[in-house]
């Protein structure tokens, strides 16, 4: 199964991945509505650090969903009809990837197997393989 892979050595912290993700899924360039959260920052100006919240398709969110609303196969899919917005999946995600919009979780669907975050990543920090 293909998964997202991230190499911080090639990341410049531009956040184009998150901006493109929210554009394609929510119709808006927005970091808070993205299904990926990769960034870098200077810790007190002295160390370059990275936040690497991206979905590795571990499936823990699906396993923890009390309603069985998350379908887990080659990617994640939300059954909005079943989802009650209980907020269980987000805290369960070991990489803190899942944000909520209108009380529903924003799950990485790998853009149907051609993730736009990978396509836009300018220096190949994100791969899907």
């Amino acid at each position, binding site marked *: 199964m293909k998964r997202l892979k991230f190499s911080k050595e090639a990341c*410049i912290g531009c956040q184009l991945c998150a901006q493109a993700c929210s554009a394609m899924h929510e119709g808006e360039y927005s970091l808070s509505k993205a299904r990926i959260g990769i960034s*870098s920052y200077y810790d007190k100006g002295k160390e370059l650090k990275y936040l690497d919240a991206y979905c590795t398709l571990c499936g823990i969110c699906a396993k923890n969903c009390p309603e069985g609303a998350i379908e887990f196969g080659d990617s994640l899919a939300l059954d909005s009809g079943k989802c009650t917005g209980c907020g269980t999946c987000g805290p369960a995600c070991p990489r803190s990837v899942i944000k909520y919009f209108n009380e529903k979780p924003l799950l990485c669907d790998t853009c149907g197997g051609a993730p736009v975050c990978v396509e836009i990543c300018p220096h190949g920090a994100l791969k899907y393989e």
Partner: protein
Amino acid sequence: MQGYQNSVLRVDLSSKEYTSEPLQMEWARKYIGSKGLAIKYLYEELAPKTDPFSAENKLVLMTGPLTGTVVPCSGKLAIASKSPATGTISDASIGGHSAVRLKYAGYDAAIFEGKLPAPGYVVIRNDKVEFKDAAHLWGKGAHETEGLLSAEYGHGAGILCIGPAGENLVGMACINSDYYRQAGRGGLGAVMGSKNVKAIVVIGDGGVKIPNIEKATRRFIEIMKEDCLQEDNTFVYDCGTTAFLEACNDGGILPYKNFSDATDENWVKYNGDVLLASKAGKRGCASCALGCGNFLKIGDATVEGPEYESISAFGPNAGVSDPEAIAKANEIADDMGLDTISAGDVISWAMEMTEKGVHDFGIKFGDAAKYQEYLKLMAKREGVGADLALGVKGASEKYGGEGFALHVKGLEYPQYEPRGSWGMSLAYAVSDRGACHMRAYAPNEEVFAASIPPYTPEGKGQMVYGLAVHNAIKFSLCVCDFWATLEKGMMAELVSLVTGEEWTEEDMNAVGERVINIARAFNQREGFSRKDDTIPGRLVAEALKSGPAAGQKIPQEAFEDMLDQYYGILGWDENGMVPGSIIDTL
């Protein structure tokens, strides 16, 4: 037009009140955003002769329609005000993440008016603004300040802050963001300091919508790969602007010992190969595709860059060839909140003053240790630093040495020697904020590509005009200068895609010329004219001694010829005045 938030945040620091108002969309149609639109607001809102340090001066943060989108290299923020260094309009383009955060907070712009009653900082959190006490931050370096604010507001916040130089109203004080990015020139940090604003923190949780966003995003990715990420631009990922060092030395335009010559035989000691061997990471700005930032740890210095300008100012132009000392000076200047170009030039001038016996500033060429101490003294206006904080114009008026004081309108010279690139003397002279290499950059044509003969006034008016129009558009979008291959036709396409309205290359040209004219009209209203479009005496009187431009100096009549050409193309009169018929259209 779409692509805008159609909202301007107006912050009254004196009363600690804030309002939002619709963006003047008819102005946006004429100036697009960022540089041009910020200048338009200030032209309309600042009374002539406003004291730059008075509460009546305003500080404008302006984004553009591309800000917050995935247009590559669109994450820069224009900051503009009336400059305390020059008395002209002054806008700077700062990197980092603040522009995108401001747009995502819901604003195209934030305009700061008045003055806080006591040192404070301002937090823009989406549609709310908070005014905070900064007693615990005042006096601290920019790096420590940003670290403390990041700890409190998170690494996702955009932070703009000043160092001691801004607090002490030093005319070469910059605004810092992301630790190592600056709105460097013209003393914008001192304007912030005069308003008692230590920092501006921006938290933006919203977003930006544009028409047909999926299709547009696909096109932006295509443009990024086909145009932006090509070799002519990606060298900045590999080596930042350190690459210019070799090119400028080979071309005979690398300033040496206060512009007394234009090559340095020691350049290999501090070139990109040496500095980047200490690279500890890479970082770009928000929405950046290129990633010019090289995070270095060298000696006891931690710095991003160093940029060519800072290397040259603290290196060859100061007679220093120790890479660790150059990087350390860069770190100290950033932390103190000093523009590296102006701070570097004034110390190099003081070194020459001392060596020539005109006035003893206690520092000579090559004195790297004292150099670092002098930067701190300047930021605090202590001891000899109080005089140097006047800048080369102010200090040379007090102590002499005006013939080798390299500035225009009080803004110190960037690190490109015009005797090897005559068009650059014109570009510096007519730049809207004093001597600036970002308004029109001649060395590409005259030296690196060598497509135009460098040692002649012929054709230089047209060349500088074309370059200036191009950059005026680019900085009004606002797109980073490092996307160097971006042509006007593509700029028109980008603006069309985000606004949903058809823009043509002709429209872009009209915007560019309008931006040049309104900046000139602003300065004209302040009393500036041809008499202020000057060339430093050294460039006219002294020939270069080494390099391909050895023997070159710029005759005064050649310089005047270039001015005449430039004024003529823009329809200005022989005194460089914008006629009323043009002003009426701005």
